[in-house]
């Protein structure tokens, strides 16, 4: 016997099985049991529909409306008559070519737009978001809200340039303090929104690798990079040789310049004389989807292994970003070298480069004339443009180009000021290198504050003076012994700088050196680029240094420098903004100050390169807190590396407890507070120096005169960086008397100042030459233009919410929370349903990994945000950006849907009252310039103008009838007209571009062939002859191939239209 309870349990087990089964299993089982799946589905759907329609208030049917039979939705007819009855209303319906009488319960309103689904406004909006994510447009930026960063408009300049360029390759030549790494991160994000980025390689200096600068900045974009040492690099090369592909494990890698050498090129030496695989010997060199080279000017010399290695990597890579200190001052030769590395297809050789640069000067004159708007400016502009087009390069490239001709005719027709301003951008677009270089100068983005520098001179006590003198004597004797060569010299200078910084940090510092405890990171912090520990040489001076340690340890606690610092801390505590940011390059100085402040009850934090990221960020947060908060800190001690990547615009005073010799480092320190977002008009800079030290001379005679403490120095990192080296040469030269040294420093400063002035002038000229000028207001406009309402965080949130609802079959968005921080709560079962299917062996990005870990893990709740600021503030939040796997899944699912049908209502007295049928089409442009866009079609011009804004203010209107088939047909006709016009233009444009590219290809090819033939003719040696002949054949083949693919692309030009939504908008007053 079974009890009722048992029978219930038995059925529950079966029901559980059915709930558990996969979709496929359900369908298969039904079929295996001989169920007519389609019939059953139809039956249940009808049952549901009947039940649901029972509760809906139904609009009465009208004559002329189309209806379908309830029993067969495919049979559609038109109502020709309605006979009310006290039993049930009868309809006359013209169906299948004859008139039939049907009861009203037998028909349903027909689906007019086949496949269209009724949608709410928010579903409709989500669909538009999905479409823009699935088919990115070059008119929109996807990276705007996609990094854990502060929003700084000018940092989007390179991105804008990048997406509009014909090839994803860019030279970012910004000045110090603009934020090149962030820009590179934005480029990465932007690229990622448009195509899958499987592999990314970043190449930078060893010091940046040790500081983990790139690692840290890339984490803002939820990307985790690994460092390649020589073992890993060797492994990667072996794997690439065996598998034909760069190993997934290293698909986000950072490589120091030092490893881009012969071993990378030719292969690592193995046992015997053989070498393993290298870049130049691999059958298929690794292909990176994105290659970023920081400080690319290091590779300007084409004879070096570094240049050659980069060339192979860049040739193979899909997208390339070279970042450099300004190439401008380095001379046009270096600019050529970098552009040639970047775009060997365009900047083929030096003569081509010169030819390309030729028209730029007159183009600039034209732009100046546009800006000047003097009477008769149109003629002047056209004359200048004509000159540009008459140059050698202009004849081939400019005159026939559609852009040029459009500009000329637009200039002729420009009637208003607005028209005139609109000409500037296309005019700048004519610069030969404008698509390849993005350059933002410090001065272009403006001065954020004025700097008030104060020098705090603190002499040594007699006791301190004597230790310092002994140190100098020791250094002099070592110098004379070693003739000033080798790493020991540098080490001694460093010791002396520590002494000038704080004698109380000297003893532990020396002990670190003796016990060889200094890490690469600490050396990088002290600005030792070579990262040479000088280990072998220390032995020779060990006993002398040990003696010095004893002296330093016995120093009394009397420290005037500390006292002066404490004075400032106290003063500052009385000011409205009591925060103080104090810098030292030396960890032991920082530790000494930290102890001193703590023991006096000052709320203090300490950050240097050795402090983990999370801790740094939480210290920053505590520093930002209002003073009344018990967790707030008032003084933050930091090394330059410690504060790298952190912004302190809420603090308005900096203390340089010691002065770095490299002006760049000083700028980095001050730049932490003198930056975008600083509210104070002025920032205070306190410079601590001790007379009688070499540091004092350097500060007095050189650094303070260059002006770094008064204003943001722009200019080249490379040149400024060199000062540090030259300063050291002067400081270490013990053959110099004090006077001679001071004279040298003075002279160095004079040279430097002259050079900076010259640079400014040169830059002014070069900016004219290369067209890299920027106007601040224009940037904001450009960003506004590139923003899309459907890509904003709120839109992403809506899409993701609806996607989850639909995917999990729940009736409400499982994401909750009022502020920017949300929580997503899902059962284990629901989480499992969201695990994305994936091919084996693909390496996941950080965001993907974290997302999947949560889906597969035990936690029910995930804290997340769609808000950039919240994500920046709290790194533990999952940041749902347009490229987040959840958003991508949502976009895929919604974009592939059928057309949606929506009915809306809006109250707006500016629009004509009535019902406006509308449709939205997606156009996919194919051919040479691929793009996608959403095109609204609506008849009334007033509504059309305001159309895309309407959706933020409209409301669902279920009582409004959707457009009838004839209205849809009308919209279709309108669309066809627009489409025909645009398509003709698109095809014409494509053939113009093709013709232009063909010309430029042929011109380039002719130049290349001419050079090769000349070289071939000049050579007598058979081996070289063979090589040149081969090159010539390859050049011809390359050219043919490029021309062929151009023809194919040209023929493909078309616009694929697809109606993605339609509906009715009722305007009320």
């Amino acid at each position: 016997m079974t009890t009722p309870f048992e029978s219930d349990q038995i059925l529950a087990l079966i029901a559980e099985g059915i709930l558990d089964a996969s979709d496929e299993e359900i369908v298969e089982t039904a079929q295996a049991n001989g169920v007519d799946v389609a019939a059953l589905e139809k039956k249940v759907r009808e049952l549901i529909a009947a039940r649901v329609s029972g509760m809906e208030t139904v609009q009465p049917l009208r004559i002329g409306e189309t209806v379908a039979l309830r029993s067969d939705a495919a049979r559609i007819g038109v109502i020709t008559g309605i006979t009310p009855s006290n039993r049930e209303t009868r309809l006359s319906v013209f169906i299948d070519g004859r008139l039939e009488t049907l009861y009203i319960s037998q028909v349903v309103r027909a689906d007019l737009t086949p496949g269209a689904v009724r949608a709410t406004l928010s579903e409709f909006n989500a669909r538009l978001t999905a479409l823009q994510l699935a088919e990115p447009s070059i008119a929109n930026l996807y990276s705007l809200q996609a990094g854990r960063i502060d929003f700084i408009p000018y940092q989007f300049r390179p991105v804008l340039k990048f997406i509009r360029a014909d090839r994803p390759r860019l030279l970012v030549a910004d000045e110090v303090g603009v934020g090149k790494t962030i820009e590179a991160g934005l480029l990465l994000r932007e690229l990622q929104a448009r195509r899958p980025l499987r592999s990314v390689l970043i190449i930078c200096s060893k010091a940046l690798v040790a500081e983990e600068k790139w690692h840290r900045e890339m984490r803002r974009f939820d990307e985790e990079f690994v460092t390649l040492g020589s073992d890993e690099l060797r492994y990667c090369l072996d794997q690439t040789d065996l598998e034909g592909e760069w190993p997934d494990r290293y698909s986000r890698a950072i490589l120091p310049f030092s490893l881009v050498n012969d071993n990378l090129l030719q292969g690592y030496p193995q046992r015997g004389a053989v070498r393993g695989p290298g870049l130049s010997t691999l059958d298929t060199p690794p292909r990176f989807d994105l290659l970023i080279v920081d400080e690319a000017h290091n590779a300007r010399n084409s004879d070096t292994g570094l240049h050659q290695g980069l060339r192979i990597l860049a040739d193979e890579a899909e997208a390339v970003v070279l970042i450099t200190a300004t190439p401008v001052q380095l001379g046009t030769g270096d600019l050529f070298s970098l552009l040639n590395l970047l775009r060997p297809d365009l900047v083929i050789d030096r003569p081509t480069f010169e030819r390309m640069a030729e028209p730029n000067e007159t183009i600039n004159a034209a732009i100046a004339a546009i800006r000047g708007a003097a009477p008769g400016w149109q003629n002047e502009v056209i004359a200048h443009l004509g000159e540009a087009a008459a140059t050698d390069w202009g004849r081939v490239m400019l005159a026939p180009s559609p852009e040029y001709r459009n500009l000329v005719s637009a200039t002729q027709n420009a009637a208003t000021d607005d028209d005139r301003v609109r000409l500037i951008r296309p005019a700048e677009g004519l610069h030969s290198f404008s698509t390849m270089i993005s350059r933002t100068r410090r001065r272009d983005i403006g001065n954020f504050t004025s700097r008030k520098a104060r020098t705090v001179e603190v002499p040594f006590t007699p006791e301190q003076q004597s230790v310092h003198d002994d140190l100098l004597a020791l250094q002099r004797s070592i110098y004379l012994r070693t003739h000033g060569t080798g790493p020991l010299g540098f080490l001694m200078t460093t010791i002396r700088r520590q002494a000038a910084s704080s004698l109380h940090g000297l003893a532990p510092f020396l002990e670190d050196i003796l016990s060889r405890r200094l890490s690469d990171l600490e050396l990088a912090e002290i600005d030792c680029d070579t990262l040479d520990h000088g280990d072998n040489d220390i032995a020779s001076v060990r006993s002398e240094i040990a003696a010095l340690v004893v002296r330093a340890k016995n120093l009394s606690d009397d420290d005037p420098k500390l006292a002066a610092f404490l004075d400032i801390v106290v003063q500052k505590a009385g000011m409205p903004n009591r925060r103080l940011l104090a810098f030292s390059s030396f960890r032991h100085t920082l530790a000494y100050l930290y102890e001193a402040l703590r023991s006096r009850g000052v709320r203090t934090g300490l950050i240097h390169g050795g402090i983990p990221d999370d801790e740094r960020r939480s210290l920053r947060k505590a520093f930002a807190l209002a003073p009344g908060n018990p967790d707030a800190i008032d003084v933050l001690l930091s090394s330059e590396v410690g504060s790298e990547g952190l912004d302190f615009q809420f603090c308005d005073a900096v203390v340089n407890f010691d002065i770095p010799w490299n002006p760049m480092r000083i700028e980095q320190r001050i730049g932490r507070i003198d930056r975008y977002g600083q509210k104070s008009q002025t920032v205070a800079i306190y410079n601590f120096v001790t007379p009688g030290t070499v540091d004092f001379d350097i500060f007095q005679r050189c650094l303070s005169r260059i002006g770094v403490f008064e204003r943001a120095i722009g200019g080249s990192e490379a040149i400024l960086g060199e000062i540090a080296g030259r300063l050291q040469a002067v400081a270490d030269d013990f053959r110099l008397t004090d006077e001679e040294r001071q004279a040298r420093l003075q002279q160095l400063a004079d040279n430097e100042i002259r050079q900076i002035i010259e640079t400014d002038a040169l830059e002014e000229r070069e900016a004219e030459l290369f067209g890299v000028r920027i106007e601040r207001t224009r940037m904001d406009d450009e960003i506004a233009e590139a923003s899309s309402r459907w890509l904003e965080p709120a839109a992403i949130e809506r899409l993701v919410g609806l996607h989850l609802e639909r995917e999990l079959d729940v009736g409400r968005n499982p994401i909750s929370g009022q502020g920017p921080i949300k929580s997503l709560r899902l059962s284990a079962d629901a989480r499992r349903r969201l695990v994305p299917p994936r091919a084996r062996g693909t390496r996941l990005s950080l965001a993907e990994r974290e997302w999947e870990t949560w889906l597969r893990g035990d936690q029910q709740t995930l804290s997340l945000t769609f808000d950039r600021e919240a994500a920046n503030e709290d790194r533990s939040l999952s940041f749902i950006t347009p490229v987040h796997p959840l958003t991508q899944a949502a976009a895929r699912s919604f974009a592939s849907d059928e057309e949606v049908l929506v009915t809306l209502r809006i109250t707006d007295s500016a629009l004509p009252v009535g019902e406006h049928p509308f449709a939205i089409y997606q156009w996919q442009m194919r051919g040479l310039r691929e793009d996608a866009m959403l095109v609204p079609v609506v008849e009334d011009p007033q509504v059309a103008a305001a159309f895309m804004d309407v959706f933020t203010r409209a409301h669902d209107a279920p009582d409004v009838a959707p457009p009838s088939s004839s209205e849809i047909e009308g919209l279709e006709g309108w669309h066809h007209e627009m489409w025909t016009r645009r398509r003709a233009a698109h095809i014409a444009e494509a053939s113009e571009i093709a013709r232009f590219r063909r010309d430029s290809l042929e011109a380039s090819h002719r130049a290349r062939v001419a050079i090769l033939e000349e070289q071939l003719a000049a050579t007598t040696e058979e081996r070289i002859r063979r090589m040149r002949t081969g090159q010539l054949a390859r050049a011809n083949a390359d050219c043919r191939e490029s021309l062929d693919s151009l023809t194919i692309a040209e023929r493909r030009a078309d616009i694929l239209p697809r109606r993605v939504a339609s509906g009715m908008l009722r305007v009320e007053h």
Partner: protein
Amino acid sequence: MSDEVEHLSREEVARLLHRQRQADILRLAAIAETWVRGVPRRDASDLLNEALARVLSGDRPWPVDIGLHPFLSQVMRSIASQWRREDIREPLIGDGDEPNVETAGHLDFDFSDLAVRMRATLVDDPPALGIFDHILTQTSRKQAFDQLGLDATGYDTARRRMTRTLRRQFKTGWTQ
């Protein structure tokens, strides 16, 4: 999407129902078919209809965080068990005529037979069989752990295995 309301509105329910795909619809049918077993004179569509009516009328509020199938399954379960009870009670009200005793006996036999066949399927898998018996005798999870010598993971794995085996063996006809 506000936080306060814990149940779906009727419009939300309607929207959710409209979104179902083919497999979802079939799953719903199969669940109805399962729960209607042993209920005389009613079929799966009656049960589904009744369940939808109750849900759409708002009689059975739908908590927001429960998926469509688990929820409707519960609704159908309670309706079916109510129907079964009514069916057994009816003759008693109707003054002791004989007929429904047979139905009840038949029903009882059907379930006993089903239980026996289910046990037989699980005979090769002692932990799964153990769990099956535990469920039928309504002992606690903890007791099951102790008697079967399983930990939580072992229990869950064996339980999943059991459900899978039963699902494969006892497909309902779904032919209505």
